[in-house]
């Protein structure tokens, strides 16, 4: 368990690797012997979530469900909670948010190349996509054979919130959890000030914008580096599970400020799925947001 700890500008900064990137925890505590166990607990919790919900493993609940071959699989409370959440998001997004859309990655690899699949290939996969085809009867989930669950669309945000909640239970100090730009702040900072976070601009110069976050969460959907380009047409990596095709006029990225990271992340993702109406959607939600086009 490698955790690096450094003192910085009035707080301890702990860094560890998980979920395919650096994870950062900032703690406004005075002493290293207070900070270290907290960061270690954060790392352990993050790795637990990653191990439990990663679709790249063959020893976890996701694998058990995906290889269920049409048989019901009974899941634990935590997993059930996430499925309840996914179900609700599917419902309110009119089917645009769908944890079964992972199979579309078989034909879509957003590596900056021009390897765009055909419409026919996309259509052929659609029978394997759709949460409405899943029988979710808590605590049992039944996936038709060939379908897959992928919680990648909310796993990182969930981990951020879990870690923030866990740390809030162990310390009264202010904490900022930052997993690659998905972040959440809990606890009032001394003197009531805010954390300064950068909202990465999906622009060529990569210049960041500063934002003050006292308490709350920030999440970003979209990645300027992940797209396909063919005959001058840019195919962004955000896929509509109803068509199997990218949302063609989606923003480069959407960043949303919310109460908790899952909320911010979901709203950012749903805004991306709205395509050219992303701004309109965000305005209707009444959240502070940044849209890169």
């Amino acid at each position, binding site marked *: 368990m490698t955790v690096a700890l450094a003192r910085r*500008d*009035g707080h301890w900064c702990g860094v560890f690797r998980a979920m395919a990137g650096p994870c950062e925890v900032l703690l406004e505590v*005075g*002493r290293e012997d*207070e900070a270290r166990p907290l960061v270690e607990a954060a790392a352990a919790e993050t790795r637990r979530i990653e191990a439990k919900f990663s679709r790249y493993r063959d020893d976890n609940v996701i694998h058990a469900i995906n290889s269920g071959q049409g048989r019901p699989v009974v899941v634990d409370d935590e997993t059930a*909670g996430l499925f*309840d*959440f996914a179900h*609700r*998001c599917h*419902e*309110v997004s*009119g*089917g*645009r948010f769908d944890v079964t859309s992972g199979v579309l990655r078989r034909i879509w690899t957003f590596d900056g190349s021009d390897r765009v699949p055909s419409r026919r290939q996309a259509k052929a996969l659609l029978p394997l996509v759709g949460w409405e085809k899943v029988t979710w009867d808590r605590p049992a989930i039944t996936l038709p054979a060939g379908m897959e669950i992928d919680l990648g669309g909310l796993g990182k945000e*969930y981990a951020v*919130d*879990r870690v923030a*909640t866990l740390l*809030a*239970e*162990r310390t*009264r100090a202010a904490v900022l959890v930052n997993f690659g730009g998905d972040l959440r702040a*809990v606890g009032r900072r*001394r*003197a*009531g*000030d*805010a*954390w*300064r976070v950068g909202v990465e601009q999906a622009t060529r110069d990569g210049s960041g914008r*500063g934002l*003050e*976050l*006292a*308490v*709350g969460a920030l999440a970003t959907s979209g990645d300027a580096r992940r797209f396909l380009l063919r005959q001058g047409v840019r195919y962004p990596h955000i896929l*509509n599970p*109803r*068509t199997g*095709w990218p*949302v*063609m*006029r989606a923003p480069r990225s959407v960043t949303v*400020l919310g*109460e*908790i990271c*899952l*909320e911010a992340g979901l*709203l950012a993702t*749903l805004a991306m*799925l*709205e*395509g050219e*109406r992303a701004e309109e*959607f965000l305005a*209707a*939600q*009444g959240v*502070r947001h940044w849209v890169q086009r």
Partner: protein
Amino acid sequence: MAATDGGAGRYRQAGVRTAIVGACGLLGLGGSGAEATEVRTAILGYTEPDRVSAFEAIIDGNHQFSDGKIVNFRLVYDALTGASASGATPASYAQTFTRPSGEGSYVTAPGETPLDDTFRDTRVAVSGGLNLPLGRLSRLGFGLYGSGEHDYTSLGANFNLTRDLNQKNTTLALRGAFFHDSISPEGGRPVPLSPMRPAYTPKARLAGDGTKGVMDLGLGLTQVLDRKTVLHLNYTFSHVTDYQSDPYKILTVVDASGDPRGGTDPMGADAFLFESRPDARTKHVLFGRVARHLGEDVVQFSYRYFTDDWGIASHTLDLTYRWELGGGKYLKPHVRYYDQAGADFYRRYLVDGEALPEHASADYRLGDMHALTYGLTYGRPVGVGQELTVRLEYYAQMGESHPADAIGVLKDYDLFPTVDAFIVQVGYSFGLLE
């Protein structure tokens, strides 16, 4: 857009966020989820050389439940002894005053400021409250307060309502507090501006105990200005009704010589009159505070403006600097300046032959004055989640010692002796997390 789902659920409505937040709530990720108890204790010694000494012990704590509810309690014990200025003027001869109880008397040497040395009291105050979230952005708190000392009881209730806006970078607060006090002084409540009588002689008394009602209403705004700066603004309106005189304070009626009228028998000549204050008072307080981080340190500046319809207006400037020494230790120097224009009815003394005003008080706390406080706090962790603090403070209050219009012998005396005080406080706090 390539979507062809026919816009199921009219999903562009603002309800999406609400639904998602509700679903998040099911996961138990909202709120801090902390279940924690925090207890703070402090003992404080206060001494004004030759005057009042006080000892105070405070224990206060709060418990936060995982659903966001917070209960808090506070217990304060005060013990006061010593002497305080009665309001009478120094005289060129030894003066004899009746003790407030009416039983016995004390003597003040020539030229000395008369101090009533029967000042001894213990006070116990208890308060508690509950603060709960109302939805995700608001909190409602209410509490009860009670305090008792041998001649004064106070019962109160308060509420506060806060709302976060703008991603919690802005907080609005509405506060109210209501008190009902009962005053039953030793020897009863003297009739305002009635004369002090010799010991064991009944004085003119008001019937029954005095009561006092207080209503405070406040509005507050806390605004995060930037990563390092937070601003807090407050306005409080306060209305106080009924008995507000100090039953132990008197004024001297002097003659042309500057000594109390009546020569060798001032009490016989009604030279000492009990003070009289109006039975209504409206106060306004404006308060602003800015806190800013400078690297690890925090500097905090506040300004308070107070005005009331008694004619008092005061300005308070306060500056603290929290200097982080590393390892959780800190030093916090503190300086405060206070300047007060006194009440309209403040009189250092009354003059024989002049018409008696409706209200008059020689209580030095109502006079023109200024005060300076210098302090230093040292804090250090003494274990995980525990902190020890030591605070030292020196306070000096100055008024017009030699007013230009002083009469006769009063020119030679200090009519507003500097009151200085030393404060030592030791505090210990600890947190318990379940």
